[in-house]
């Protein structure tokens, strides 16, 4: 018995059945002076194979010029979001069998392409950073107690893996360069409801959320974010909750 090195998956006899699938990859290399084009690869298929397995097979065995990002291969690091057959997905959690015998892979839309499937995520990160995605600790935070109900409020929002799938899918973020977008507003909400934070910071968060150009009111409720989020966070709903927080704060005169 022979153990292969990390192939599609470590120790997996590749494509024993002789079956193959077609991977259509959108290629672009800024050094070449040639515009983007699609390249097709025939990839040996095995049951259980993911799209990332197929891409790594191409990189290692067929075409070393391919560029992509990947790290954890278990949908927790957020590296591998891309357009797969027209939809934002994580390559590592997508079964080839689930998307069909021809798989088309393109870089995330609405972000500048660096090369092939690698996009420049800085514009997305800038929006994340603008939402103050960090807790500012209270000065009196000895003996912390967090009621389980409060934990429930931010539990889901803190699952975000910063993959940018929602940002890429959001029509409002596309048409308005100032709009913070679903993930960033989700983070704003996540910290807003966390009582471990210095209470004097809360109004500032709500002011950011209330910003006319960048904030919650720019959300058109297209819910594209919630459809594509691989962590089932439902950012659309978090934005709706944040809107309610903002309105309450306005009425009570806190902001």
């Amino acid at each position, binding site marked *: 018995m022979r153990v292969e090195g990390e192939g599609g998956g*470590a120790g997996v006899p590749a494509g024993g059945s002789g079956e193959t699938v077609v991977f259509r990859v959108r290629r672009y290399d800024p050094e070449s002076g040639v515009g983007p084009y699609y390249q097709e690869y025939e990839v040996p298929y095995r049951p259980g194979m993911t799209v990332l*397995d197929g891409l790594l097979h191409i990189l290692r065995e067929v075409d070393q010029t391919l560029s992509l990002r990947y790290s*954890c291969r*278990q949908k927790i690091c957020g590296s591998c979001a891309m357009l797969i057959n027209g939809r934002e997905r994580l390559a590592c959690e997508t079964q080839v069998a689930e998307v069909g015998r021809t798989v088309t892979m393109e870089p995330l839309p609405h972000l500048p392409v660096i090369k092939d499937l690698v996009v420049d995520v800085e514009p997305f990160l800038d929006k994340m950073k603008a939402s103050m995605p960090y807790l500012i600790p*209270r000065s009196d935070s000895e003996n912390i107690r967090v*009621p389980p109900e409060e934990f429930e409020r931010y539990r889901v929002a803190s699952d975000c893996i910063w993959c940018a799938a929602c940002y890429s899918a959001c029509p409002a973020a596309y048409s308005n360069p100032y709009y913070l977008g679903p993930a960033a507003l989700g983070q704003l909400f996540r910290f807003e409801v966390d009582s471990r934070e210095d209470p004097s910071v809360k109004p500032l968060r709500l002011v950011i959320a209330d910003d006319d150009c960048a904030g919650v009111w720019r959300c058109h409720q297209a819910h594209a974010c919630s459809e594509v989020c691989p962590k089932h966070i439902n950012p659309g709903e978090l934005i709706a909750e944040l809107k309610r927080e903002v309105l309450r704060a306005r009425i009570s005169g806190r902001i």
Partner: protein
Amino acid sequence: MERHGVLVVGGGLAGLRAAVEAKLSGADVAVLSLVYPMRSHSVAAQGGINAALGNADPTDSWERHAFDTIKGADYLADQDAVEEYARDAIERVLELDRWGVPFSRTEDGRIAQRPFGGAAFPRTCYAADHTGHAVMHTLYQQSLRLGITFYDERVALKLVKEGERVVGVVAMNLRTGELESYAARAVVMATGGAGRIYARTTNSHHSTGFGMALAYWAGAPLEDMEFIQFHPTTLYGTNILISEAARGEGGVLLNNRGERFMARYAPEKMELAPRDIVARSIYREVLEGRGFEGEYVHLDITGLGEDRIMERLPQIWELALKFAGVDARYEPIPVQPGHHYTMGGIDTDKHGRTEVPGLYAAGECACVSVHGANRLGGNSLLECVVFGKRAGESASSDAASASDPPSGPFEEAEREVEAWIGRLVERGGEERAENPYHLRAEMQRVMWEKVGIFRDEEGLSAAVAELKSIRKRYWEGAGVRSGGKTFNVALYDALATGGMIDVALAVASGALARRESRGAHYRTDYPRRDDENWLKHTLARFTPDGPVLEYRPVVITRWPPRERKY
């Protein structure tokens, strides 16, 4: 050239904790990392982080935590370090709570704690089943709050020295392909574990051990590298971890004849026997022809029924479906053992200092040692924050009195790295060039088959010889078939492979020399622990002809070695 007081290489949990500490103590600190910090392997940790908070059982204490760690380590841990580690743990975890980690809670709002393998008390604090993600993101968030400088998507390729002292690194910017020099008064390595030197591992694709190789090449010894933890149940295909929970809830292991084979190896505990025993049993079945093609066995949870599976094991059900296309409600999950944790690493003291001036290390790439021959679950995230903090502290206080490095050594180092890259790319144009991915795969196969779960003299000697020949083929014949500058993944992988081979050699050589079985190191030809001759740490020093081994006694304070029985 960029200049900083403290440069942290690696943006995982240990790196960020070091950076935060350095920043808080007033140093000018920057983090240089191959991936954006939140893409680091640390986010994959699931189970939790240990600290004797006593929230679930008030009689727990840091002393008990220390003892469990030492016993788990099969007495190879340095007890002075473990004592300080278990004591620091409490404050480090409470601090994480103040910084915003979304910990799961008890009814009265304190951090919830659960039982974990090898611990006598429920001591593991957790954030649902993605503690690593929660802690990592919180540290990244705090780094943003503190305004720490990040150099993302840069890979360190060489530690630069002036005389005996490390004064910075030469790195490649993945986005531009350019080499960049980073000078620093102190350099902290926090580059993670070496799982990818094995064909099967639960670790991320970037857990290559490359950072260990950089330190090793720069003169720092690697400690206890032969101690590799194998997890019994990883998903066939991608080797994603399938946690003990599946067996805890009543999942059974079956071979290709449908037999519940654990009855042969651990008739009482069956599937719930300790990790190493289950791993050996599965692999024994496979070696004796009772596994399935591809070397796996079945983990069958169908007996639990649909409702219980969806209620108690939804994550495992989802993992099997998404990553192996298996619906665990109706079919068994294919599983096999795989590398899980690298106990050894860059030799450091309790404060993160290596023996090379200017060089520090923390996290899975380092070896203090607190894990000895076997790490307990929940102890490595803790190691990252305890020793990350300490390394950050030492680095910034030493940096305050050090002087700024000159630029001369950087020019020379850049030329060396350029030559390395040049050779790889040039040879890529030749028909007969060796594909670095194939060399890597060969190394991974040798490591898995001969330096894996079962080891013996014959296999280990063969492994050392084969690794040496792979090493030679790499340096004399490897070529990358991709010459572009922009985001050249294949080039990065080829460079890392050079480091991985030397790390693999250190593991194999240490294992060959150690004629005993201890913790995770299992020699079929020396099945007993031998305290008389082997209660000592292995130190491997780099030479181009292979590692030179030295030994150092284990520090014993108050717990004399006893037989490790659970």
